[in-house]
């Protein structure tokens, strides 16, 4: 019997939902509806569940998202797929009340309707709902998106959406401020009853659940909710928990605080998150497109072959989503080996309690259109990957890493024997698979390191609402390889090869040390809102201590 190894995804926070929205869009774009084509090497049942609604089969993410009131805009809390009982606003024949009158158990003349103004759908969503997106239709999403529902392509199960009512989303300021406020909120009925029950509902459906992917905003109150949530997962299900703390490239000030104060609050929230993750997660990978995630966050990471706007959340989040999409392939493959488990990935990397890893991405993987992998690896000697973890630099020594390369067809590994010529002279010619060759590559280029490599043939699909403008400088072919000769011929980039690496090394000690020193300097008394929200001085000390102990895991070890 072939069993699906399900993964449940949790998204907590506004930026997490930006990333998540891209992630699910990309997932859905990689579905194959053509029965003629060979079945995909990726098992979509891992992330998606089959359901039924009005005698139709539905396929929706095993996902729960969490955001503040007001962030959903035109989307109802029950989502936009199971829409049977939804009311129509602005129906000239039947006003809102009369549409549901019979279902309200109260005397007729005594009902007061308090209606908010209808929030219009952006034109992209309208087209999607009404007639689908026509080939070549442009929506200039880069300029028009101001929140994640604007570019939501995948439709969700009514269970998926969870809204915190106590805090309202605002474009100007951030109201949900501290880690502590977040942890307090966890004790409210929204979480105790509903949210936790929904997690249970998802798990109950699973035959062989591998664990959880948790994507969350580490800078605001969502950090606190997320840590409580992860603690709950660990306590209740004892399955693998992979966490991605996010630090957005653009941040708002918190209410009643200036920039300096806001920065300090973010710093503390991040530090608390890392400390707690070291206790409750199986592995965590901080992600950001900024070089630094705390104090003086200004320099954006550059990617060689894409042009993106580093102050646009819709842009930045798509890069982080591409990372998650690619690195997660190994536990989403259809073929089940002992390697292809989330637990395996975590166990490979979290040795000695070093649960934090750095992320690197090569997006797109910069191979020329006619080149073979063997030649590419032979000639390429600049940095193949860009780091996307904040305040992190990892060199080439004493590293444990898990690499995923996708989108290189098998026949591009090397030339067949008859035509191989010079390739034969290379040691790598004996490698018979992509992963083997990458493995060898790292054996040669990294000192005293250990690389686990997974590969997949399918490239990452690039389809609107993914920001296709990344590739507008026309340097890529439609399959995402670098053009050998620049020409004016405009090619639609339909997919790109991507490589990612999750890395652990003692250099991460510097990251944690930096975080620790910064946060240790803060005088808690100067930020009364933590205390006001119920943080005990002792607890604060303990968290700092926990962070320090965690940092030390990276210091004193012979092996690495």
């Amino acid at each position, binding site marked *: 019997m072939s069993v699906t190894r399900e993964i449940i995804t949790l998204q907590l926070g506004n930026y997490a939902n930006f990333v998540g929205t891209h992630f699910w869009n990309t997932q859905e774009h990689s579905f194959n509806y053509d029965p003629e084509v060979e079945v995909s090497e990726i098992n979509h049942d891992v992330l998606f569940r089959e359901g039924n*609604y009005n005698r139709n089969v539905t396929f929706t993410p095993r996902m729960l998202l969490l955001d503040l009131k007001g962030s959903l*805009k035109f989307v109802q809390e029950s989502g936009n797929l199971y829409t049977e009982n939804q009311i129509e606003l602005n129906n000239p024949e039947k006003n809102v009340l009369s549409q549901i009158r019979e279902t309200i158990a109260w005397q007729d003349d005594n009902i007061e309707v308090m209606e908010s103004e209808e929030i219009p759908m952006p034109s992209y969503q309208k087209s999607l709902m009404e007639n689908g997106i026509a080939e070549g239709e442009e929506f200039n999403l880069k300029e028009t998106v101001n929140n994640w529902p604007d570019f939501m392509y995948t439709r969700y199960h009514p269970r998926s959406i969870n809204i915190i009512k106590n805090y309202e989303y605002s474009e100007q300021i951030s109201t949900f401020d501290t880690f502590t406020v977040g942890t307090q909120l966890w004790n409210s009925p929204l979480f105790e009853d509903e949210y936790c029950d929904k997690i249970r509902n998802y798990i109950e459906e699973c*035959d062989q659940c591998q664990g959880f992917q948790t994507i969350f905003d580490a800078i605001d109150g969502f950090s606190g909710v997320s840590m409580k949530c992860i603690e709950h997962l660990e306590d209740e299900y004892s399955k693998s928990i992979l966490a991605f703390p996010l630090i957005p490239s653009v941040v708002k000030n918190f209410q009643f605080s200036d920039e300096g104060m806001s920065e300090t609050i973010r710093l503390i929230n991040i530090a608390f998150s890392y400390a707690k993750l070291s206790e409750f997660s199986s592995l965590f990978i901080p992600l950001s497109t900024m070089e630094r995630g705390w104090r003086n966050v200004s320099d954006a990471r550059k990617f060689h072959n894409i042009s993106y706007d580093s102050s646009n959340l819709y842009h930045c989040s798509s890069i982080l989503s591409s990372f998650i999409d690619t690195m997660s392939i190994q536990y989403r493959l259809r073929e089940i080996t002992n390697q292809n488990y989330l637990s395996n990935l975590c166990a490979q990397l979290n040795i000695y309690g070093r649960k934090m890893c750095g992320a690197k991405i090569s997006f797109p993987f910069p191979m020329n259109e006619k080149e073979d992998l063997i030649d590419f690896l032979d000639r390429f000697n600049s940095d193949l990957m860009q780091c996307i973890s904040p305040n992190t630099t990892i060199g080439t020594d004493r590293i444990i890493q898990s690499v995923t390369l996708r989108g290189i067809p098998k026949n591009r590994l090397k030339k067949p024997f008859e035509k191989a010529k010079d390739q034969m002279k290379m040691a790598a010619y004996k490698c018979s698979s992509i992963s083997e060759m990458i493995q060898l590559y790292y054996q040669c280029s990294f000192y005293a390191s250990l690389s686990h490599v997974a590969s997949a043939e399918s490239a990452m699909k690039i389809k609107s609402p993914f920001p296709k403008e990344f590739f507008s400088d026309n340097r890529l072919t439609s399959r995402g390889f670098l053009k050998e000769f620049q020409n004016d011929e405009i090619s639609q980039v339909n997919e790109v090869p991507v490589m990612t690496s999750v890395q652990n090394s003692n250099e991460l000690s510097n990251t944690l040390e930096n975080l620790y020193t910064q946060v240790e300097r803060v005088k808690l008394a100067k930020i009364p809102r933590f205390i006001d929200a119920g943080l005990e001085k002792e607890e604060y000390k303990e968290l700092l201590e926990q962070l320090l102990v965690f940092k030390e895991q990276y210091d004193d070890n012979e092996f690495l």
Partner: protein
Amino acid sequence: MAAISLLNPKAEFARAAQALSVNISASKGIQDVMKTNLGPKGTLKMLVSGAGDIKITKDGNVLLHEMQIQHPTASLIARASTAQDDITGDGTTSTVLIIGELLKQAELYIAEGLHPRIITEGFDQARLQALKILDDMKHPVEINRKNLQDIARTALRTKLNTQLADLLTDVCVDAILTIKKEDDKPVDLHMVELMEMQHKTATDTQLVKGIVMDHGSRHPDMPKRLENAYILTCNVSMEYEKTEVNSGFFYKTAEEREKFVLAERDFITQRVQKVIDLKKKVCDGTNKTFVVINQKGIDPNSLDMLAKEGIMALRRAKRRNMERLALACGGVAMNSFDDLKEEHLGFAGLVYEHVLGETKYTFVENCKIPQSVTILMKGPNKHTLAQIKDAVRDGLRAINNTLEDKCLIPGAGAFEVQANIKLREYSKTVKGKARLAIQAYADALLVIPKTLAVNSGYDSQDTIVRLQEEGELSTDPIGLDLSTGEPFKPVDQGIFDNYIVKKQIINSCTVIATNLLLVDEIMRAGMSSLKG
């Protein structure tokens, strides 16, 4: 929501001199929105979001929180209302109205030059006196069906139309009578599970003397209906888990790892076999059947084994249902199968599955002496279900409060009228300006009967005068009959409120009004959050 834009959000920057009037006008603003809610003739509010989400409520606290208030005065009031709800489950609209009215009354005297300090001191004296009056009005009740129905009905009819309210009254009372012990102590309300079922056509609520779960068996060959069932409740994994330890890294050779994997699987198989062995022992040769309800997972292999033996098995049951199941069916929730015996098993006359859309429900019914029950609510959409669920909670709380208090307070404004009369008498015994504050307090309480009158379409002054007259003459408590507009005896009609609810209202309203009147302190609180 719209109405609260009357509150100026920048108010925290107001200078101290203006702060008092800001507080007063803010609380008046909220009072205006909430006023129409009060009582069985109040207005139901239907909130429609910009995306078309609907929330229907007549509950003060729910409304207050849906309104999204950022204003510090308002959030202080909202906090009082939440506290009221947490402690008693009722009286939140009254809380908001009385706070607003206390401030209004105070404003009149402050305008005439009375210092806020004197007013707050007088308020506190009045509070103590009001509590005494309340104690004198206690109407002791025996814990029986009729009395519990009276309190539940009064509460529910302020939230739902008569027909549905009366149905729910019986359901709530039956639920509590079923699980309450001989000693008539309050019950643990967690042992009443509220289960929602969204169903196109039905609006119905019923009491199930057993447990209903929102999941079913996950194997096609498992029985869907069993009678005379032994129930094994457990928290034991029957799932082979790919843990971090048994993956890759720690094994020298592939064979070594394979061996470990096999051993691990075998371990689970043996566990399942223990359950099967017990099933055979207790069921073979009888008409008894066997059901496993597990808080942990059960994987397809294990389900297969159980299905072959005709066992129905559910996985990932709610943690709380472990306790509920043991109370409903008897038996013990097991954390291991090492020493599994018949006496650990519970028993239910009937276990069956019911499928609705995507969701399977499992009913565990016909339990002998159920100490835990389920209220099953059916409704055509989410907002109706939410409305019913809120109401059921209110009903259960009202009954449980009665078990705690062993007394009730006559409703329909009877307490407020009586307190008004007695406080005015009392004020005459007080020397100095505090007397004025006590009178103000007495008058503020009248906002309840006044609002009840107005919401039913009667003139408020006219009504109050007649209530006061009647109240002074009568030795019985006098309230307002909302169907006639005439004074009447609420006790005769079975209209009651909970003692604890009124007590909490008196205390919290006085405290919050005092805080709002002593502006300096508020300003300081405001500043500290500004510094943040």
